[in-house]
């Protein structure tokens, strides 16, 4: 399920529902404010529906389809009225776009509503580039960065070029390629605590690759993966600092990185 680069003109001031996602809401609100700023800069009318909670991914990945369906219906009702739904996470957006129709398969009417909403639901970077043809304004940050492509965004939504296109516009920022950039970091949602020793072995290989890149910053588009990798880097005493790509694009790169005191 890839998003082809759109050739049509961007919609004029579309009404966008910001899908904040649980982790951003509770752990790192700056990512939400960065998304808000970028979407507004891109000319969107952004609203944050108050009724939104969790997309149901933990239930879905645990095999609990009934609870997933409850939360999926809620999500659809909450966001259906917007022109677009945009979230700063490939994993959460992948859940609503790729998996809601599966979770609601027993209920064709709802599955159809899920599919229709899915067509208008986007991961932030891909929405900014593919739909809004957005170029970030005057952002400067003198730093080198490496980029981890989180699996759901990459394989379920085709997010790969878009964050690079956007980050390329930040003056002073240079990309240092990450060996195995498309290899899972070992987060996997509840996997990282259910099978913590296996997850640790996987993330240890990932942080070694991050260190080898020689970059000062680790960027990505999914807070869960970033918390996993930066948590390991911190434990290892690494100097690499981790941010969500949206924060850098919104000019928040001077603020505290993930796991630094606010």
């Amino acid at each position, binding site marked *: 399920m890839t998003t082809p680069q759109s050739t049509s003109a961007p919609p004029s001031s579309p009404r966008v529902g910001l899908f904040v996602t649980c982790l951003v809401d509770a752990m790192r609100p700056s990512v*939400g404010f960065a998304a808000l700023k970028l979407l507004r800069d891109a000319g969107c009318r952004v609203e944050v529906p108050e009724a939104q909670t969790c997309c149901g991914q933990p239930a879905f990945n645990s095999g609990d389809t009934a609870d997933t369906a409850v939360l999926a219906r809620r999500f659809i009702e909450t966001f259906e009225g917007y022109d677009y739904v945009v979230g700063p996470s490939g994993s959460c957006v992948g859940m609503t776009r790729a998996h809601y129709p599966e979770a609601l398969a027993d209920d064709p009417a709802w599955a159809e509503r899920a599919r229709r909403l899915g067509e208008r639901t986007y991961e932030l970077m891909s929405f900014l580039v593919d739909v809004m043809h957005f170029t970030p304004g005057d952002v400067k940050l003198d730093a080198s960065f490496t980029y981890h492509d989180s699996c759901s965004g990459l394989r379920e939504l085709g997010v790969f070029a878009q964050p690079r296109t956007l980050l390329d516009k930040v003056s002073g920022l240079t990309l240092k390629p990450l060996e195995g950039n498309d290899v899972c970091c070992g987060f*996997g949602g509840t996997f990282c605590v259910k099978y913590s020793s296996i997850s640790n072995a996987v993330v240890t290989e990932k942080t070694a690759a991050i260190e080898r890149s020689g970059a000062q910053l680790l960027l990505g588009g999914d807070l869960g993966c970033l918390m996993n990798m930066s948590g390991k880097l911190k434990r290892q005493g690494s100097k690499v600092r981790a941010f969500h790509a949206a924060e850098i694009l919104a000019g928040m790169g001077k603020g505290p990185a993930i*796991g630094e*005191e606010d």
Partner: protein
Amino acid sequence: MQEAPVSFKLRADRALADPTLKIAIDRTTGTAERKRTVAMTQFPQFEAARERGKRIKDHVIANLDHYLLEFERNAIASGAKVHWASTAEEASQIVVALCKQANAKRVTRVKSMLGEEIGLPHALDEAGIERVETDLAEHIVQLGGDRPSHIVWPSMHRTREQVSEMFKRAHRVPHQEETIEAMVASARRELRDKFLSADVSISGANFLIADTGATCTVTNEGNAELTTTPPRVHIVTAGIEKLVPSTEHAFLMLRLLVRSATGADVTQYTTFHCGPKQAGDRDGPEEFHIVLVDNGRTRMLADPALKEMLRCLRCGACMNHCVVFRQLGGHVYGGTYPGPMGAVLTPVFDGLEQSRDLAHACTMNGKCQEVCPVAIPIPTLLRGWRDRSWREGLEPAAARFGLGIHTFVASRPRLYRLGTAIAIKVMRLFSRGGLVRGMPGLGAWTKYREFPAPAKRSFMAMYKDSEGKR
């Protein structure tokens, strides 16, 4: 199947604590991954071939009854004897009975994962028939008295240094020099006369060709040819999903299989067996038997959550690219087939209760599906097992309780905001220097990595304030 002695998690932790195993895994899977990547750059039609391969397999699976009967008819016409086995036990009993009928003292075997699946090595040993594994890696597995840890490289779990020691202990005239060539020569000296003196040979099949009744086997060592030619009796065991309509279809599947497995364009040997020795043939077996094995496959066929797994070519690409397999190796999975494809198959053979960890010990990163030459949606199939495990009540009570509460709270936005605010407060109580430390309930995370302190207030709380001021 051999009983798994300890829990999956304990087996995993033991594997993680074995640095030699990790070296062995990285050598094999790392090489396989690199070679496949190169092979793919030289195979631009891969996507198209993969789509065709998928369609061929789906077509055969949808018309399995037709192709099985066509295959049987043509195999019989070629002089083969066809046997049908619905279970693993039945299949291995048929093979053992055929060996006894032939008064076999010694049988040579060509590596076959189906043979492992039906417990054939064990059944032959039980029956007191000398079993000679002729594949070099299977020979190493036999010497070590263990089981294959990879479906293409069964002795992946051994380093060459370990193999050298094993050969020195077991071979009659072991190698002197520590080179791969000398070690291979040692195995050849050990095995060669056994090849020639066996009464029965047993092999598997990569494909069963419906319109000719032939079986097709790929190897790189040539042991399949040498094994199956001299003995009087040749027995092929194959799963019923191995069918393809014609030789032409087999060739397309071979392109997908070999590149995905080893990164080579073709295997060193691609052999078609069609019936026993015919009048005028210089060599070949006098009897040629084909044992067609169901062992759960028709149940998979009837199950929408498993049916697509019947496309599997057993190339091993999914495990070579799996971050979990590359940490654990194959034995931890506890079944015949390891890695992502094994995690789908093992519950079919061993029951879900025994193997429920396999579907969960996966990050759902989707790499296996990306590299699968017949596009099997492995993550979706694993999620199918998670669903079933949930429905059948096999999941821990704590998880059921936790998710129940979560759904209750997440269905009530105001309660959810309150819960978030409390969670933030608690986490900040345990925070120092930007990190949460020593908080009960976070141990599985913080044992290995730091957990960042949350911001003072949630996004939703701050947004409400800031929008008021806008």
